[in-house]
């Protein structure tokens, strides 16, 4: 658990995807935050989204494989 316990001592820095007021609240508290103007991927086209998901799954498998070497 050392990795997670080490994190407990660190400053939280946030990427916010979705509701903008969550980022505004964090900013007001002096927390470093990057709000994203998120929108559904592939222009909302479900077929392209499904293809993208397959590519991403493949990419993460490749990445995991490289990490193991």
């Amino acid at each position, binding site marked *: 658990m050392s990795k997670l316990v080490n994190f*407990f001592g660190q400053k939280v820095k946030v990427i916010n*995807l979705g509701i903008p*007021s969550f980022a505004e609240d964090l900013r007001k508290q002096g927390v470093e935050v990057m709000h994203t103007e998120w929108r559904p991927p592939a222009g909302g086209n479900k077929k392209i989204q499904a293809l993208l998901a397959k590519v991403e799954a493949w990419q993460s498998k490749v990445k995991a494989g490289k990490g193991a070497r």
Partner: protein
Amino acid sequence: MVVCHLIRKQTYFDSVTLMLIGSQVKKLDGIENAVVGMCTDYNIDSLKRLNMYQPEFDGLTPNDLIICIMGKDKATAENGIAEVEKRLKSRKQASGASAELPPATQEEAARRLPEANVVLISVPGEYAAREAMQALNNGRHVMLFSDNVSIEEELELKTLGVSKELLVMGPDCGTAIINGTPLAFANAVRSGDIGLVAASGTGLQEVTSTIHRLGCGISQAIGVGGRDLSEKIGGRMTIMATRALAADPATRVIVMISKPPAEKVLTPLFAEFKNIGKPVVVYFIGADPKMIEAQGFVAARNLEDAALQACRLSNKKQYNPEMTDSEIKKLADKVKLPAASLRGLYSGGTLCDEAQRLLQPAIGEIFSNTPVKGCKEMPDVYKSSGHCIIDLGDDNFTRGKAHPMIDPDYRAERVVQEFADPNVGVICFDVVLGYGSHPDMAGEMVGAIERGRKKSGRNPVLAACICGTEEDPQGWQQQKARLAEAGVSVFPTNVAMVKFVQHCLERK
């Protein structure tokens, strides 16, 4: 009635912003209905149901914005559209505080803030797991506020999270305080040595706020999502978070809040707690405390008690509730109910649940839209009869509308409705403060109370509990003063308010 509409192609806003604006514009004179939303299947269904669907909406995508207003005439409806546009423009200006254009994807955001260690996700559920997976693969902790994430996706995310020692808080996790930072709906509390793991949003808010008001503090408050202790998820995140708090030198006492875990999860969880070597306070909502005590842990009787026990263990001295039973009884002795029925109008689900559990043995038949054991299902959630304790944050009331902790409109309407019922003797409600919540919920409730009194000429007894701290953006004392001026009896915890209600009903 005339329906006017405006389509903004490839213009995306989050659903909470759009629902709030739609709800505000609907209140304008002459406007019968307003649908402001992205072109999702749900919004299309709503438009069809309301007879507001237009042929021009065919072929639009979830990235296209629809503003559709039904008004008494064309000018009123068009004015409604202009109002929506004005409000959207000011929202955009408020969120785009920096001169630089905001990033459009998580990848781009990570390039601009590479040291980011948490990704807070509140995008529609169907896209949330994908974003969470990306965050975990890049070594970042996840707070998943989004709901409608499947349990299979949750299992996949949490399995990956555990393998990388990364938190997956959620899905449907509304509250967390990590390294002193309140995330989403959370309160401003002092740092301290009490660490919490919870599968309940308002439960976590109530306990952390009470701990703060009692003078103690929080090391971490980790939300795990309501399904973490289900058989399928197996308590993966609860176990990882508990192990980390056990190893964390800043944490001396651990508090666990959840509905009772699945049978198969209970044994490994208790085995885990036994290895901690720090005092553990357990509140399994609705479970028999003796079952917890038999295992050697401290069993809390309710949310307030969980806070009291945690403070006692943290400072090795006795802590008493902020309001004693005799103070509560004295207050109740001063009032006289004009009729016999109770109406509880809650925005916090766990608080609603707690009120039912505490009151049912004392006052008998209670109806709810989310009945606990011993209470009954409301035949019609929109019309109360007898004693009713209602969770207005439940799905019935939030389809197409923002949560009542953000949008007070339906609860305000319901207050007026309950005032008009000659059988109502007492109305009680919660006011949840903190980041994310409405900036002046007390003010909104007072407005509704005044309208209710004026319209009905009645004066039922009113009671409120305020979940929060003085350091919250709304200020505990300021909210209390606002309610007290309007004749509402105000309590620091839900438990104290419920005791007051019980006394009132017993001596009616």
